[in-house]
Protein backbone atom coordinates (compact mmCIF):
# COMPACT_ATOMS: atom_id res chain seq x y z
CA UNK A 1 0.00 0.00 0.00
CA UNK A 2 2.75 2.43 0.98
CA UNK A 3 4.79 1.50 -2.10
CA UNK A 4 1.80 2.21 -4.27
CA UNK A 5 1.50 5.68 -2.71
CA UNK A 6 5.10 6.50 -3.47
CA UNK A 7 4.44 5.71 -7.10
CA UNK A 8 1.49 8.05 -7.44
CA UNK A 9 2.66 10.95 -5.28
CA UNK A 10 3.66 13.72 -5.48
CA UNK A 11 0.85 14.59 -7.81
CA UNK A 12 0.68 18.18 -9.12
CA UNK A 13 -2.46 19.75 -10.52
CA UNK A 14 -3.84 23.24 -11.11
CA UNK A 15 -6.27 24.21 -8.37
CA UNK A 16 -7.11 27.40 -10.30
CA UNK A 17 -5.39 29.65 -12.86
CA UNK A 18 -3.36 31.09 -9.98
CA UNK A 19 -2.67 28.05 -7.79
CA UNK A 20 -1.15 24.57 -7.85
CA UNK A 21 -2.06 21.75 -5.50
CA UNK A 22 0.66 19.24 -4.70
CA UNK A 23 -0.74 16.06 -3.16
CA UNK A 24 1.60 13.85 -1.18
CA UNK A 25 -0.74 11.12 -0.07
CA UNK A 26 -4.33 10.21 0.45
CA UNK A 27 -4.60 10.06 4.22
CA UNK A 28 -3.46 11.66 7.48
CA UNK A 29 -0.25 10.22 8.89
CA UNK A 30 3.02 11.34 10.47
CA UNK A 31 4.98 9.86 7.52
CA UNK A 32 3.09 11.98 5.01
CA UNK A 33 3.47 14.97 7.33
CA UNK A 34 7.27 14.59 7.18
CA UNK A 35 7.12 14.73 3.38
CA UNK A 36 4.83 17.78 3.45
CA UNK A 37 7.33 19.49 5.76
CA UNK A 38 10.25 18.64 3.47
CA UNK A 39 8.52 20.02 0.39
CA UNK A 40 7.41 23.10 2.31
CA UNK A 41 11.02 23.82 3.28
CA UNK A 42 12.19 23.08 -0.28
CA UNK A 43 9.69 25.37 -1.99
CA UNK A 44 10.02 28.14 0.60
CA UNK A 45 13.79 28.28 0.28
CA UNK A 46 13.65 28.29 -3.55
CA UNK A 47 12.26 31.86 -3.49
CA UNK A 48 10.40 31.53 -6.77
CA UNK A 49 9.54 34.83 -8.46
CA UNK A 50 5.79 35.54 -8.54
CA UNK A 51 5.03 33.03 -5.80
CA UNK A 52 2.51 34.50 -3.35
CA UNK A 53 1.92 31.85 -0.71
CA UNK A 54 2.59 28.23 0.25
CA UNK A 55 -0.12 26.55 2.32
CA UNK A 56 0.75 23.10 3.69
CA UNK A 57 -2.00 20.86 5.08
CA UNK A 58 -2.25 17.18 6.15
CA UNK A 59 -1.26 15.62 2.83
CA UNK A 60 -1.03 18.53 0.40
CA UNK A 61 0.56 21.89 -0.31
CA UNK A 62 -1.32 24.68 -2.09
CA UNK A 63 0.91 27.14 -3.93
CA UNK A 64 -0.51 30.48 -5.02
CA UNK A 65 1.24 32.57 -7.67
CA UNK A 66 0.65 35.75 -9.63
CA UNK A 67 0.10 34.63 -13.23
CA UNK A 68 1.12 38.10 -14.43
CA UNK A 69 4.60 37.56 -12.95
CA UNK A 70 5.04 33.88 -13.79
CA UNK A 71 3.03 31.78 -16.21
CA UNK A 72 1.22 28.63 -15.08
CA UNK A 73 3.46 26.39 -17.19
CA UNK A 74 6.66 28.03 -15.97
CA UNK A 75 5.80 27.58 -12.29
CA UNK A 76 4.59 24.02 -12.81
CA UNK A 77 7.93 23.09 -14.40
CA UNK A 78 9.85 24.81 -11.58
CA UNK A 79 7.89 22.96 -8.89
CA UNK A 80 8.25 19.64 -10.73
CA UNK A 81 12.02 19.91 -10.87
CA UNK A 82 12.15 21.05 -7.21
CA UNK A 83 10.23 17.99 -6.10
CA UNK A 84 13.02 15.73 -7.36
CA UNK A 85 15.32 17.26 -4.74
CA UNK A 86 13.38 15.80 -1.82
CA UNK A 87 16.27 13.68 -0.57
CA UNK A 88 18.59 16.67 -0.15
CA UNK A 89 16.28 18.50 2.29
CA UNK A 90 17.23 18.75 5.93
CA UNK A 91 14.37 19.67 8.23
CA UNK A 92 15.05 21.29 11.59
CA UNK A 93 14.33 19.20 14.72
CA UNK A 94 10.84 19.95 16.06
CA UNK A 95 10.43 22.41 18.89
CA UNK A 96 8.43 21.37 21.95
CA UNK A 97 6.24 24.17 23.23
CA UNK A 98 4.45 24.10 26.56
CA UNK A 99 0.98 25.60 26.58
CA UNK A 100 -0.23 26.41 30.12
CA UNK A 101 -3.95 25.71 30.41
CA UNK A 102 -6.28 26.57 33.26
CA UNK A 103 -8.98 23.87 33.35
CA UNK A 104 -10.87 25.76 36.11
CA UNK A 105 -14.64 25.59 35.62
CA UNK A 106 -14.78 29.35 34.99
CA UNK A 107 -12.90 28.75 31.71
CA UNK A 108 -14.26 25.25 31.03
CA UNK A 109 -18.06 25.37 30.60
CA UNK A 110 -18.15 21.99 28.81
CA UNK A 111 -15.56 19.92 30.69
CA UNK A 112 -18.31 18.15 32.64
CA UNK A 113 -19.95 17.12 29.32
CA UNK A 114 -16.65 15.54 28.24
CA UNK A 115 -16.34 13.79 31.64
CA UNK A 116 -19.92 12.50 31.66
CA UNK A 117 -19.85 11.34 28.03
CA UNK A 118 -16.73 9.25 28.69
CA UNK A 119 -17.59 8.18 32.28
CA UNK A 120 -14.56 9.93 33.71
CA UNK A 121 -13.96 12.38 36.54
CA UNK A 122 -13.01 15.92 35.57
CA UNK A 123 -9.56 15.35 37.09
CA UNK A 124 -9.11 12.32 34.83
CA UNK A 125 -10.16 14.30 31.73
CA UNK A 126 -7.50 16.91 32.57
CA UNK A 127 -4.90 14.22 33.13
CA UNK A 128 -5.66 12.47 29.82
CA UNK A 129 -5.83 15.72 27.82
CA UNK A 130 -2.54 17.04 29.17
CA UNK A 131 -0.71 13.71 28.78
CA UNK A 132 0.37 13.51 25.07
CA UNK A 133 2.81 15.52 23.04
CA UNK A 134 0.59 16.74 20.19
CA UNK A 135 1.90 17.29 16.68
CA UNK A 136 1.02 20.58 14.98
CA UNK A 137 0.26 19.18 11.51
CA UNK A 138 -0.17 22.70 10.11
CA UNK A 139 -1.83 26.04 10.78
CA UNK A 140 -4.88 27.12 8.83
CA UNK A 141 -8.57 27.92 8.77
CA UNK A 142 -8.29 31.09 10.86
CA UNK A 143 -5.19 33.05 12.00
CA UNK A 144 -2.86 30.90 14.07
CA UNK A 145 -5.25 27.93 14.41
CA UNK A 146 -3.26 24.66 14.83
CA UNK A 147 -4.48 21.35 13.44
CA UNK A 148 -3.33 19.00 16.23
CA UNK A 149 -2.86 15.24 16.37
CA UNK A 150 -3.58 12.86 17.96
CA UNK A 151 -6.00 13.22 20.85
CA UNK A 152 -6.51 10.17 23.12
CA UNK A 153 -9.69 8.26 22.22
CA UNK A 154 -10.84 8.21 25.89
CA UNK A 155 -11.97 11.86 25.71
CA UNK A 156 -13.58 11.97 22.24
CA UNK A 157 -16.75 14.09 22.49
CA UNK A 158 -19.12 15.18 19.69
CA UNK A 159 -19.45 18.86 18.87
CA UNK A 160 -22.15 20.92 20.60
CA UNK A 161 -25.54 20.80 18.87
CA UNK A 162 -25.70 24.57 18.81
CA UNK A 163 -22.43 26.43 18.22
CA UNK A 164 -21.67 29.36 20.53
CA UNK A 165 -21.72 32.78 18.90
CA UNK A 166 -18.58 33.78 20.74
CA UNK A 167 -15.79 31.60 22.09
CA UNK A 168 -13.10 33.63 23.93
CA UNK A 169 -9.57 33.72 22.49
CA UNK A 170 -7.29 31.11 24.09
CA UNK A 171 -10.09 28.60 24.69
CA UNK A 172 -8.94 24.98 24.55
CA UNK A 173 -11.60 22.68 23.18
CA UNK A 174 -12.58 19.22 21.97
CA UNK A 175 -14.59 18.63 18.78
CA UNK A 176 -15.08 14.96 17.96
CA UNK A 177 -11.66 13.30 18.01
CA UNK A 178 -9.80 16.61 17.64
CA UNK A 179 -8.53 19.06 20.21
CA UNK A 180 -7.66 22.64 19.39
CA UNK A 181 -7.09 26.16 20.65
CA UNK A 182 -9.10 29.19 19.47
CA UNK A 183 -6.46 31.85 18.67
CA UNK A 184 -9.00 34.65 18.27
CA UNK A 185 -12.44 35.16 19.71
CA UNK A 186 -14.86 33.61 17.20
CA UNK A 187 -18.01 31.52 16.86
CA UNK A 188 -17.43 27.82 17.58
CA UNK A 189 -19.11 24.50 18.23
CA UNK A 190 -16.42 22.60 20.14
CA UNK A 191 -16.61 21.64 23.84
CA UNK A 192 -14.58 24.18 25.82
CA UNK A 193 -12.46 22.52 28.50
CA UNK A 194 -10.00 25.24 29.49
CA UNK A 195 -8.17 28.41 28.52
CA UNK A 196 -4.54 29.37 27.95
CA UNK A 197 -3.28 32.82 28.96
CA UNK A 198 -0.87 32.77 25.98
CA UNK A 199 -1.65 34.70 22.81
CA UNK A 200 -1.54 32.45 19.75
CA UNK A 201 -1.99 35.29 17.29
CA UNK A 202 -0.19 38.66 17.63
CA UNK A 203 -0.62 40.55 14.35
CA UNK A 204 1.77 43.32 15.45
CA UNK A 205 4.70 40.87 15.58
CA UNK A 206 6.88 39.95 12.64
CA UNK A 207 6.17 36.31 13.51
CA UNK A 208 2.46 36.70 14.22
CA UNK A 209 1.75 33.15 15.39
CA UNK A 210 2.97 31.43 18.56
CA UNK A 211 3.00 28.03 16.85
CA UNK A 212 4.27 26.77 13.54
CA UNK A 213 3.96 23.64 11.45
CA UNK A 214 5.65 20.57 13.00
CA UNK A 215 5.95 22.00 16.51
CA UNK A 216 5.12 19.55 19.28
CA UNK A 217 2.91 20.96 22.02
CA UNK A 218 2.23 19.90 25.55
CA UNK A 219 -0.65 21.23 27.65
CA UNK A 220 0.43 22.03 31.21
CA UNK A 221 -2.40 22.40 33.79
CA UNK A 222 -2.19 25.62 35.83
CA UNK A 223 -4.25 27.17 38.59
CA UNK A 224 -6.45 30.22 38.18
CA UNK A 225 -3.92 32.27 40.11
CA UNK A 226 -1.13 31.22 37.76
CA UNK A 227 -3.41 32.01 34.82
CA UNK A 228 -3.91 35.58 36.08
CA UNK A 229 -0.18 36.02 36.70
CA UNK A 230 0.74 34.76 33.21
CA UNK A 231 -1.98 36.88 31.64
CA UNK A 232 -0.37 39.99 33.11
Amino acid sequence: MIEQQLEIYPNIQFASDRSLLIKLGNEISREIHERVLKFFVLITSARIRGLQSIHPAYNSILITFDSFMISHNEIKDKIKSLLTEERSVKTPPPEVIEIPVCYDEEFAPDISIVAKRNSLTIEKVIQIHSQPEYLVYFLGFSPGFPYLGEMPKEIVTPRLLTPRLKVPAGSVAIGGDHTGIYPISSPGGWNIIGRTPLRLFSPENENPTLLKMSDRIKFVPITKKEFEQLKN
Partner: protein
Amino acid sequence: MPLMKVIKPGFQSTIQDLGRFGFSNLGISISGAADAVSLRIGNLLIGNDQNSPALEMTLVGGEFIFDSDTIIAITGSNFQPTIDGKEIPLWKSIFVRSGQSISFGATQSGARCYLCIKGGFEVDKILGSFSTHLLTGIGGYKGRALLKNDELNYAGSNFKYLQPLKVKKEIVIELMNREKIFVTNAPQTDLFSTETINLFSSSVYSVSEETNRMGLRLNGPKLVNINNQDIVTEGVSLGAIQVSHDGNPIILFVEHQTTGGYPKIANIISAHLHKVGQLRPRDEIQFSFVSIEKAYEMRMHLESLISPMSLTLA
Protein backbone atom coordinates in the same frame (compact mmCIF):
# COMPACT_ATOMS: atom_id res chain seq x y z
CA MET B 1 -2.64 66.12 9.08
CA PRO B 2 -5.78 66.44 6.90
CA LEU B 3 -8.83 64.61 8.20
CA MET B 4 -11.86 62.97 6.66
CA LYS B 5 -14.68 62.83 9.18
CA VAL B 6 -17.37 60.18 8.95
CA ILE B 7 -20.85 61.71 9.16
CA LYS B 8 -22.61 58.51 8.07
CA PRO B 9 -20.61 55.28 7.74
CA GLY B 10 -22.84 53.45 5.23
CA PHE B 11 -23.70 49.74 5.42
CA GLN B 12 -20.15 48.39 5.59
CA SER B 13 -17.26 50.69 4.70
CA THR B 14 -13.68 49.49 5.14
CA ILE B 15 -10.20 50.58 4.14
CA GLN B 16 -8.73 48.20 1.55
CA ASP B 17 -5.68 47.84 -0.64
CA LEU B 18 -4.82 44.89 -2.90
CA GLY B 19 -4.42 42.44 -0.03
CA ARG B 20 -2.11 40.77 2.44
CA PHE B 21 -0.13 38.11 0.62
CA GLY B 22 2.08 35.35 1.93
CA PHE B 23 0.42 34.45 5.23
CA SER B 24 -2.07 31.77 4.20
CA ASN B 25 0.12 29.13 5.86
CA LEU B 26 -0.60 30.94 9.15
CA GLY B 27 -4.34 30.89 8.47
CA ILE B 28 -4.58 34.48 7.21
CA SER B 29 -6.44 34.99 3.91
CA ILE B 30 -5.51 37.90 1.64
CA SER B 31 -8.48 40.18 2.27
CA GLY B 32 -8.07 43.35 0.14
CA ALA B 33 -10.54 45.00 -2.21
CA ALA B 34 -13.46 42.80 -3.30
CA ASP B 35 -13.27 44.50 -6.72
CA ALA B 36 -9.53 45.04 -7.00
CA VAL B 37 -9.81 46.31 -10.60
CA SER B 38 -11.98 49.28 -9.59
CA LEU B 39 -9.59 50.11 -6.75
CA ARG B 40 -6.56 49.96 -9.08
CA ILE B 41 -8.16 52.14 -11.75
CA GLY B 42 -9.35 54.64 -9.14
CA ASN B 43 -5.80 54.98 -7.88
CA LEU B 44 -4.48 55.25 -11.45
CA LEU B 45 -6.85 58.17 -12.16
CA ILE B 46 -5.33 60.31 -9.41
CA GLY B 47 -1.70 59.30 -9.90
CA ASN B 48 -1.49 57.02 -6.87
CA ASP B 49 0.33 53.75 -6.53
CA GLN B 50 -2.26 51.13 -7.59
CA ASN B 51 -2.01 49.51 -4.15
CA SER B 52 -2.85 52.73 -2.20
CA PRO B 53 -5.45 52.20 0.53
CA ALA B 54 -8.91 53.43 -0.43
CA LEU B 55 -12.41 53.24 1.03
CA GLU B 56 -14.57 50.28 -0.03
CA MET B 57 -18.31 50.79 0.46
CA THR B 58 -20.90 48.03 0.30
CA LEU B 59 -24.50 48.35 -1.05
CA VAL B 60 -25.15 51.67 0.73
CA GLY B 61 -22.51 54.38 0.94
CA GLY B 62 -21.84 56.95 3.65
CA GLU B 63 -21.26 60.67 4.03
CA PHE B 64 -17.84 62.20 4.65
CA ILE B 65 -16.44 65.72 5.25
CA PHE B 66 -12.91 66.69 4.18
CA ASP B 67 -11.04 69.38 6.09
CA SER B 68 -8.39 70.03 3.41
CA ASP B 69 -8.21 70.24 -0.37
CA THR B 70 -7.65 66.94 -2.14
CA ILE B 71 -8.28 64.98 -5.31
CA ILE B 72 -10.46 61.89 -5.35
CA ALA B 73 -11.81 59.30 -7.79
CA ILE B 74 -14.94 57.22 -7.34
CA THR B 75 -15.03 53.87 -9.12
CA GLY B 76 -16.94 50.60 -9.09
CA SER B 77 -20.73 50.67 -8.81
CA ASN B 78 -22.86 53.78 -8.89
CA PHE B 79 -23.80 54.70 -5.30
CA GLN B 80 -25.19 58.10 -6.48
CA PRO B 81 -22.32 60.27 -5.21
CA THR B 82 -22.84 64.00 -4.63
CA ILE B 83 -20.62 66.85 -3.45
CA ASP B 84 -22.54 69.41 -1.38
CA GLY B 85 -25.73 67.99 -2.88
CA LYS B 86 -24.56 68.18 -6.51
CA GLU B 87 -24.24 64.96 -8.50
CA ILE B 88 -20.69 63.93 -9.48
CA PRO B 89 -19.51 61.36 -12.03
CA LEU B 90 -17.74 58.05 -11.43
CA TRP B 91 -14.49 56.99 -13.13
CA LYS B 92 -13.12 60.56 -13.12
CA SER B 93 -10.60 62.50 -11.03
CA ILE B 94 -12.36 65.20 -9.01
CA PHE B 95 -11.06 68.15 -7.03
CA VAL B 96 -12.51 68.44 -3.50
CA ARG B 97 -12.20 71.67 -1.51
CA SER B 98 -11.65 71.93 2.19
CA GLY B 99 -14.98 71.77 4.06
CA GLN B 100 -16.88 70.01 1.29
CA SER B 101 -18.85 66.86 2.00
CA ILE B 102 -19.31 63.83 -0.24
CA SER B 103 -22.44 61.82 0.17
CA PHE B 104 -23.39 58.41 -1.23
CA GLY B 105 -26.72 56.63 -1.38
CA ALA B 106 -27.88 53.12 -2.23
CA THR B 107 -26.32 51.29 -5.14
CA GLN B 108 -27.81 51.62 -8.60
CA SER B 109 -25.73 48.77 -10.08
CA GLY B 110 -23.38 46.38 -8.19
CA ALA B 111 -22.29 45.67 -4.61
CA ARG B 112 -19.22 47.88 -4.19
CA CYS B 113 -18.07 51.44 -4.71
CA TYR B 114 -14.55 52.79 -4.08
CA LEU B 115 -13.48 56.22 -2.89
CA CYS B 116 -9.81 56.68 -3.77
CA ILE B 117 -7.96 59.70 -2.43
CA LYS B 118 -4.74 61.39 -3.52
CA GLY B 119 -1.87 59.84 -1.56
CA GLY B 120 -4.16 57.23 0.02
CA PHE B 121 -5.62 57.03 3.53
CA GLU B 122 -3.06 56.97 6.33
CA VAL B 123 -3.61 53.81 8.33
CA ASP B 124 -1.20 51.36 9.96
CA LYS B 125 0.40 48.69 7.87
CA ILE B 126 -0.20 45.25 9.44
CA LEU B 127 1.72 42.26 8.04
CA GLY B 128 2.60 44.18 4.90
CA SER B 129 -0.86 45.47 4.02
CA PHE B 130 -3.31 48.26 4.84
CA SER B 131 -6.38 46.14 4.13
CA THR B 132 -9.02 45.46 6.76
CA HIS B 133 -9.63 41.81 7.61
CA LEU B 134 -13.00 42.06 9.36
CA LEU B 135 -13.15 38.50 10.68
CA THR B 136 -9.73 38.80 12.33
CA GLY B 137 -10.14 42.43 13.33
CA ILE B 138 -6.83 43.55 11.86
CA GLY B 139 -5.68 46.18 9.37
CA GLY B 140 -7.38 49.24 7.89
CA TYR B 141 -8.96 51.62 10.39
CA LYS B 142 -8.82 49.90 13.82
CA GLY B 143 -9.47 46.53 12.19
CA ARG B 144 -13.15 47.28 11.63
CA ALA B 145 -15.74 48.91 9.41
CA LEU B 146 -16.10 52.69 9.81
CA LEU B 147 -18.45 54.15 12.40
CA LYS B 148 -20.06 57.58 12.75
CA ASN B 149 -17.57 60.26 13.91
CA ASP B 150 -14.45 58.27 12.96
CA GLU B 151 -11.67 60.50 11.67
CA LEU B 152 -9.29 59.22 9.02
CA ASN B 153 -6.05 60.91 8.00
CA TYR B 154 -5.14 61.38 4.36
CA ALA B 155 -2.11 62.78 2.57
CA GLY B 156 -3.69 66.16 1.85
CA SER B 157 -2.90 69.15 -0.32
CA ASN B 158 0.82 68.65 -0.74
CA PHE B 159 0.50 67.80 -4.45
CA LYS B 160 0.79 69.48 -7.82
CA TYR B 161 -2.28 70.31 -9.85
CA LEU B 162 -3.49 67.23 -11.65
CA GLN B 163 -4.91 67.21 -15.17
CA PRO B 164 -8.49 65.89 -14.75
CA LEU B 165 -8.73 62.42 -16.26
CA LYS B 166 -11.50 59.92 -16.87
CA VAL B 167 -11.69 56.29 -17.88
CA LYS B 168 -12.79 55.64 -21.47
CA LYS B 169 -16.45 54.66 -21.60
CA GLU B 170 -15.98 51.39 -23.51
CA ILE B 171 -13.41 50.24 -20.91
CA VAL B 172 -15.85 50.86 -18.05
CA ILE B 173 -18.55 48.92 -19.89
CA GLU B 174 -16.20 45.97 -20.48
CA LEU B 175 -14.97 45.90 -16.87
CA MET B 176 -18.39 46.14 -15.26
CA ASN B 177 -20.08 43.54 -17.49
CA ARG B 178 -20.87 40.41 -15.50
CA GLU B 179 -23.19 38.44 -17.75
CA LYS B 180 -21.07 35.30 -17.47
CA ILE B 181 -18.51 34.34 -14.87
CA PHE B 182 -15.73 32.12 -16.21
CA VAL B 183 -14.33 29.25 -14.16
CA THR B 184 -11.64 26.59 -14.53
CA ASN B 185 -11.58 23.10 -13.09
CA ALA B 186 -10.82 22.81 -9.37
CA PRO B 187 -9.01 20.00 -7.52
CA GLN B 188 -12.20 17.94 -7.04
CA THR B 189 -14.07 18.65 -10.26
CA ASP B 190 -13.78 14.96 -11.13
CA LEU B 191 -15.59 13.96 -7.93
CA PHE B 192 -18.71 15.27 -9.71
CA SER B 193 -20.46 13.42 -12.53
CA THR B 194 -20.57 14.88 -16.04
CA GLU B 195 -24.32 15.45 -15.58
CA THR B 196 -23.72 17.43 -12.37
CA ILE B 197 -21.00 19.52 -13.99
CA ASN B 198 -23.29 20.24 -16.96
CA LEU B 199 -26.09 21.15 -14.57
CA PHE B 200 -23.76 23.58 -12.80
CA SER B 201 -22.63 25.30 -16.01
CA SER B 202 -26.04 25.40 -17.71
CA SER B 203 -28.10 26.73 -14.78
CA VAL B 204 -28.78 30.19 -13.47
CA TYR B 205 -27.74 30.68 -9.83
CA SER B 206 -28.84 33.50 -7.61
CA VAL B 207 -26.73 35.05 -4.90
CA SER B 208 -28.25 34.46 -1.46
CA GLU B 209 -28.58 36.95 1.38
CA GLU B 210 -25.84 35.04 3.22
CA THR B 211 -23.12 36.83 1.32
CA ASN B 212 -20.16 38.80 2.55
CA ARG B 213 -16.41 39.24 2.07
CA MET B 214 -15.81 35.67 3.29
CA GLY B 215 -18.03 33.99 0.77
CA LEU B 216 -21.11 34.06 -1.43
CA ARG B 217 -23.69 31.33 -0.97
CA LEU B 218 -25.62 30.54 -4.14
CA ASN B 219 -29.17 29.28 -4.65
CA GLY B 220 -30.05 27.09 -7.61
CA PRO B 221 -29.95 23.45 -8.66
CA LYS B 222 -28.30 21.29 -5.97
CA LEU B 223 -24.98 19.66 -6.81
CA VAL B 224 -24.07 16.33 -5.25
CA ASN B 225 -20.69 14.69 -5.72
CA ILE B 226 -20.56 11.05 -6.74
CA ASN B 227 -20.19 9.50 -3.28
CA ASN B 228 -21.34 12.54 -1.30
CA GLN B 229 -17.91 12.44 0.32
CA ASP B 230 -15.71 14.91 2.14
CA ILE B 231 -12.01 15.27 1.44
CA VAL B 232 -8.98 15.49 3.71
CA THR B 233 -8.75 19.17 4.74
CA GLU B 234 -6.54 21.13 2.33
CA GLY B 235 -5.63 24.73 1.47
CA VAL B 236 -8.26 26.50 -0.63
CA SER B 237 -7.85 29.04 -3.43
CA LEU B 238 -9.49 32.44 -3.72
CA GLY B 239 -12.61 32.04 -5.87
CA ALA B 240 -12.98 28.31 -5.26
CA ILE B 241 -16.58 27.09 -5.59
CA GLN B 242 -17.05 24.64 -2.76
CA VAL B 243 -20.08 22.36 -2.47
CA SER B 244 -21.25 21.46 1.04
CA HIS B 245 -23.51 18.54 2.02
CA ASP B 246 -26.71 20.45 1.30
CA GLY B 247 -25.63 20.66 -2.37
CA ASN B 248 -25.45 24.46 -2.47
CA PRO B 249 -22.32 26.00 -3.98
CA ILE B 250 -20.38 28.67 -2.09
CA ILE B 251 -17.81 30.98 -3.69
CA LEU B 252 -14.88 31.43 -1.28
CA PHE B 253 -13.98 35.09 -1.34
CA VAL B 254 -11.29 37.52 -0.13
CA GLU B 255 -11.69 36.84 3.62
CA HIS B 256 -12.18 33.08 3.22
CA GLN B 257 -10.99 30.53 5.75
CA THR B 258 -7.69 29.26 4.38
CA THR B 259 -8.57 25.55 4.54
CA GLY B 260 -11.62 23.49 3.72
CA GLY B 261 -12.83 19.90 3.69
CA TYR B 262 -15.62 20.12 1.10
CA PRO B 263 -15.06 19.20 -2.57
CA LYS B 264 -14.61 22.11 -4.98
CA ILE B 265 -16.33 21.87 -8.35
CA ALA B 266 -14.77 24.90 -10.06
CA ASN B 267 -12.69 28.04 -9.47
CA ILE B 268 -13.37 31.59 -10.69
CA ILE B 269 -10.65 32.78 -13.11
CA SER B 270 -8.38 35.62 -11.93
CA ALA B 271 -9.70 37.96 -14.63
CA HIS B 272 -13.26 37.62 -13.27
CA LEU B 273 -12.69 37.83 -9.50
CA HIS B 274 -13.51 41.54 -9.53
CA LYS B 275 -16.93 40.75 -11.03
CA VAL B 276 -17.68 38.51 -8.03
CA GLY B 277 -16.91 41.49 -5.79
CA GLN B 278 -19.76 43.36 -7.48
CA LEU B 279 -22.41 40.66 -6.98
CA ARG B 280 -25.33 41.59 -4.72
CA PRO B 281 -27.81 39.34 -2.94
CA ARG B 282 -30.47 38.18 -5.46
CA ASP B 283 -28.24 38.90 -8.50
CA GLU B 284 -28.39 36.07 -11.04
CA ILE B 285 -25.25 34.55 -12.52
CA GLN B 286 -24.16 31.84 -14.91
CA PHE B 287 -20.86 30.01 -15.01
CA SER B 288 -18.89 28.85 -18.01
CA PHE B 289 -15.83 26.57 -17.98
CA VAL B 290 -12.64 27.65 -19.75
CA SER B 291 -9.13 26.18 -19.90
CA ILE B 292 -6.20 27.41 -17.80
CA GLU B 293 -4.66 28.75 -21.05
CA LYS B 294 -7.76 30.80 -21.85
CA ALA B 295 -7.86 32.09 -18.25
CA TYR B 296 -4.22 33.16 -18.62
CA GLU B 297 -4.96 35.03 -21.87
CA MET B 298 -7.88 36.81 -20.22
CA ARG B 299 -5.72 37.84 -17.26
CA MET B 300 -3.17 39.34 -19.66
CA HIS B 301 -5.94 41.19 -21.49
CA LEU B 302 -7.35 42.53 -18.21
CA GLU B 303 -3.91 43.78 -17.16
CA SER B 304 -3.61 45.61 -20.50
CA LEU B 305 -6.79 47.53 -19.64
CA ILE B 306 -5.51 48.66 -16.24
CA SER B 307 -3.16 51.19 -17.77
CA PRO B 308 -2.90 54.92 -18.53
CA MET B 309 -3.91 53.98 -22.10
CA SER B 310 -7.44 53.43 -20.80
CA LEU B 311 -7.63 57.01 -19.52
CA THR B 312 -8.44 60.16 -21.43
CA LEU B 313 -8.62 63.87 -20.63
CA ALA B 314 -11.84 64.75 -18.87
